[in-house]
């Protein structure tokens, strides 16, 4: 079947199997391997992408469901000139990743939060991010990075 959607600010038209997940389509057909698949059960958050700015687990979302929508992956987060998004910069500054496997999903989940709530409290950040697992960092550097990005995006830095 054919589907049309917007992927990282560009229109795409793909011929897919109805059973294909969004993660499979993005990784295998679109070669966007920044979409990382781990638990395949919507537990870990590593495959998080944004669909119309909302975080979605691409491992358990059928690609068919994003027809006509806007999909953002980590590859589409930097601006057109290649300048990093404040969250990407903050993750670098705070060493908010080690192996990096959870990082694309983590950054996109955080972007959804900051787009919705520009100045979240720690409790709000923890509640929003609780569905994204990281096995390396112990989470604190990620929390610090989201705080920095929130400030940067509000022009407080």
């Amino acid at each position, binding site marked *: 079947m054919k589907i049309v959607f917007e992927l990282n600010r560009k229109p795409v038209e793909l011929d897919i199997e109805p059973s294909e997940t969004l993660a499979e389509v993005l*990784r295998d057909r679109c070669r*966007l*391997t*920044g*979409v*990382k*698949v*781990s*638990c*395949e*059960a919507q*537990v*870990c958050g*590593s495959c998080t992408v944004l669909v119309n700015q909302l975080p979605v687990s691409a491992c358990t979302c059928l690609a068919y469901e994003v027809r006509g929508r806007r999909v953002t*992956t*980590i*590859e589409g*987060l*930097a601006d057109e000139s290649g300048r*990093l998004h404040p969250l*990407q910069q903050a*993750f*670098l500054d705070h*060493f908010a*990743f*080690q*192996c*990096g*496997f*959870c*990082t*694309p999903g983590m*950054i996109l989940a955080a972007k959804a939060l900051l787009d919705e709530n520009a100045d979240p409290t720690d409790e709000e*950040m*923890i*509640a929003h*991010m*609780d569905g*994204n*697992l990281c*096995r*390396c*960092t*112990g*989470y*604190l*550097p*990620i*929390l610090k990075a989201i705080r920095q990005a929130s400030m940067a995006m509000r022009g407080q830095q």
Partner: protein
Amino acid sequence: MSEFTTVNHSVPRGDGIAKVTGSAIYASDIGLEHMAWAKVLRSPFAHARIVSIDASAAKRQPGVLDVLTADGLAGLSPYYGHAVKDHPLLAIGKVRFVGEPVAAVIAEDEPSAQEAVKKIVVKYEELTPVLDVDTALSAGAPLVHDKEYAGGAFRGFDDFPEGTGNICQAVHVEWGDVESALASAAHVAEGEFYFPMVYAYAMEPYVAVADYNSKSQLTVYSSAQHPFIVRHDLARVFGLPLANVRVIVPFVGGGYGSKSYTKVEPLAAACSWRTGRPVKFRLSVEEAMLTTRGDDARVRIRTAMDADGHLVARQATIHLNTGAYAENSPMVARKAANRIVGPYRIPNVKVDCLAVYTNTVPASSYRGLGGAQVTFPAESQIDELAEMTGCDPLQFRLENLAHRRESIHPGMRPIDADVPGDICQAADLLGWKEPLAPGHGRSICCSATDAGAHPVTLAMVQVYGDGSVSVMSGSTELGQGSHTVLAQIAAEEVGVPLERVRLVGSDTTVTLFERSTGASRTTTLMGRAVLEACREAIAQCKSMAAELLGVPAEELVEERGGIRCGQTRLTWAGIVERYFEMEGCSILGRAYLRKAGDLTLIPAFWEIGVVGLEMEVDEDTGKISVDSMVTIGDVGLAIHPAMTEGQDLGAATMGLGASLFEELIYDGQQLTNGTMLEYRVPRFSDMARNIQMKLVENRDGVGPYGAKGGGEGAVNPIGPCLANALYRATGVRIRTLPLTPERVWTALQQKRS
């Protein structure tokens, strides 16, 4: 002000941009032209004889290239294992745990392979399984392995005696006269402890892409931590020269020990060998949970002190549940036996540790390698003894901890750290003497683990005529930041900006041998090898400069990044270019570290784990939450302070998981919670409310600039910290982890009644 230009600074990570933009390539992202896919059929029984396998329907399915079973392994040496060669690529004659691969389908795409797996018909004759250690050790127990295996290539390093029956490995550690010391001791603490079966959950599951070509050259892209040991196993399985086997490890999505040693690579390679096509074999997380876990441990332990409050004896029996295959459990057994002593002066010690085969998922390395399993009983008992004498547990530790240069293990390296100083810093940061609120408890625990593994580490460095440098290292970048740290060391030594240094590896064809990436060794051993390789390149430059300038080498004055001779200044790069009179040249520096010189004594360094925490227990629900957590990293010198602290926090958080809620649970033959829906790991909301990481830099290690490794130590003390703090809060002593709300609540109820 640091005396260093690049090291000891928290410089940007070399892999940073790639990892925040999604361009970092992991083995799971690798695809090759004409690549086929493999999926395996797994055993539904813990112990059974394979009567027959009918793969005809699977082979007939469109898209299927072939089905590989044990019969198809003829011509190969079908068993692998670095310690004991007991692990077949596919079950041969027998299955030994639920989840063991029995047959592999190779197909044009992964869904076809998965579909065809269901069409394979296997007839089994069930055998009595051995599902726990006590049964395995009982007289007349069925044998998990009823044949003899050859030792693996790395068995000889550590002089392991052979096991018998269901004993995979028996380790005995003894000095002094434990029985006399126990008999005359003033106080003896005695108890039985249990550390659970845990899963490391590296978020990227095991994956290999193998290409066995028509020239009998095998290339494997893998998520392995130790590519050189994988290469060795592959060479043996296929009867290939080492030079024909190339193992490439791109970025790895988490390891924590679980990706140590060989996993999926031999089967992926056999599928390629069989079909003549590159083959990708990737596991789901559920399959990864059926591949490797940590050894659960039952520890019976007695610790004794004299009337003056000095430790006089420790006796322990450790039973590790090793599962169906040896993997690295012989080493876990060795390390558990060593590590149960802790950083204390104990004049009489006797430890017996058995790694025991059972019909469960094979156990192997898990962060801390036996350290977490034995620090729980060891440090719980230190608190129990302190209480018997009415002594403050911190004070009790201070009176018994070994000081720098004291020996804790006869024949091993003396303590190269300041453990008493470390726990005092933890006490200060935690507010040890502050009054405790009701329901709160505090504890500080410590461990000393013989880290670094066997020191064989080789490195090469190229210094180019344009002032850039490449470092060829066989250490794997698992996220711990080794590529950044090694580049920092090269930049520091050659005197070039960090941006001019490139890391190459891991790739067994273009980097020299490095035994492993684990045991917290990389900064210490590979870091030192890189430093020495840089200095060797510089020595060559000096000889070249002397020749170019027509002066004796002694007249050259070394400066940062080059030499001065009178008014003439030359950079190392400038010397290279002038020497060859050609642009684009480079020279090669190399270093070979082995067990010699100051690396003769094992361990290369003692990794010290010091954690302090304050927890709160909800007595109505039994739920524990961590209020404050302090880690002390006694690392000699932090080449990269922020990443070093990150290692401590990550290790401590992994320890929280194993201590509070992580546990693989078997119901009979079946693993009942083998999915991430049911296996609970720490989340954002489990973070301690206050976290402090402190580094201690006394430059007392054998690594570069006095550095020592970190990253595992902080796992070990978490379990006993929580158990001791719970005791202080409630008077309840729990000797089984994890401290789930149910377990804590039940214990509180029992105390009340």
